[in-house]
């Protein structure tokens, strides 16, 4: 049986200055250059505040890596919208405290992360 494909969710935290701009922009830049498909939202807080039903699909049955903020905050933001994040298969990367390099590495793995970081002419 083939392994389920890993999904990626990126939060831009567009409505506050709490996630360092350079970190979130570098993570986005490298995800965009990685060649992998991903979902990006302007602000996870907005989806939670509006009880957006798509949060349920984003959480899915796990196998998702979420680049956002503190895992405790993300967990309870989903919960506030009536969605329980699965215990297994969900990895939350904290762009408020972790450097972009570490977040990208955790999401993409070494190979993809290096490819996404490399200047074009080096590829």
């Amino acid at each position, binding site marked *: 049986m083939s392994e389920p*494909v890993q999904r990626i969710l990126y939060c831009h935290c567009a409505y506050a200055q*709490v996630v360092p701009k350079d970190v979130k922009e570098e993570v986005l830049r490298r995800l965009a250059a990685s060649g992998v498909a991903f979902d990006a*939202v*302007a*602000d996870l807080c907005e989806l939670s*505040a509006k009880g957006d039903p798509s949060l349920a699909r984003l959480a899915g049955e796990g196998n998702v890596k979420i680049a956002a903020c503190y895992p405790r905050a993300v967990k309870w933001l989903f919960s506030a919208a009536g969605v329980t994040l699965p215990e297994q298969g969900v990895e939350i990367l904290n762009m408020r405290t972790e450097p972009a390099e570490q977040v990208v590495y955790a999401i993409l793995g070494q190979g993809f992360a290096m490819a996404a970081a490399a200047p074009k002419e080096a590829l």
Partner: protein
Amino acid sequence: MIAADVLRVILYEGEGSRALEDDRRYELMRGLLEKGYAVTSTRSGGQVSGVGDGRGTWVVLGQFDQQGFGGAQGAAGDLKLEVRDIDGMETPAVLAAVEAAHSAGGATKPAKWKPWFPVIDYNRCTNCMQCMSFCLFDVYGVSTEGKIKVQNQNNCKTDCPACSRVCPEVAILFPKYRFGPINGDEVSMDDVRREAMKVDISALLGGDIYAALRDRSEKAKSRFSKERDEDRALKERNRCLEKLQKGMEIPMEVLASLPSPEQIQAKAIEAKARAEAALKLAAARSGSSPEAPSPA
């Protein structure tokens, strides 16, 4: 027409289209996210959730070849697709085209929301109802199971984390707050002790913050009536407010907009009654007497 709560864009790079340059993809995504859109970047072989709930208008952007967009187009149920070829367009022009496409698709502007609202960590919450008793703005309510919940998040006052300060379990988060653990950072024993000390600000003011505010306001009024010293009454009120502002980080504008002492008293009594009723309900459902402390 059903309005989408969040506007969606799909950046399509698959069959029937040419891939975008990496820098362009990044610029487009950043621009769309800054404008509040949810963006799904599709790539061959990848999997996305497609932020959306199958309704509203989705705008599909791509550099399409002559055969055009190979995916679905038009309307399906409550979902409407607006496809735009962005070949040769600069980012600002693409952003304008997306806005126009959403309007053309009949999408309405999403409802306004406030980025500042409390989120309850139910792993820590003991359902003591202190937050509900404390908040004057009816942010908190009770579920049918007698459980505390955030009921009117739009009532919350921006930058005011006071309810999280009175929570004895550090169970209330404000994800946009600057510092931990209120911002969602892990809670340490030191945090619990520190927060408990901050709760003691109420003791500083005589055990009940609202009662203290009321008393001081009454005293100030009385002095004012006796001495006609408006400045002194104002100074007294400001001293009290300053203590609250410093101790609990309640913004001055929130304190300045507090209702009259009579209204505060009425609200406090009402909130206390609601909290007690909720605790009784919760206890009845669990078949035990309430263990949580009586709300203030």
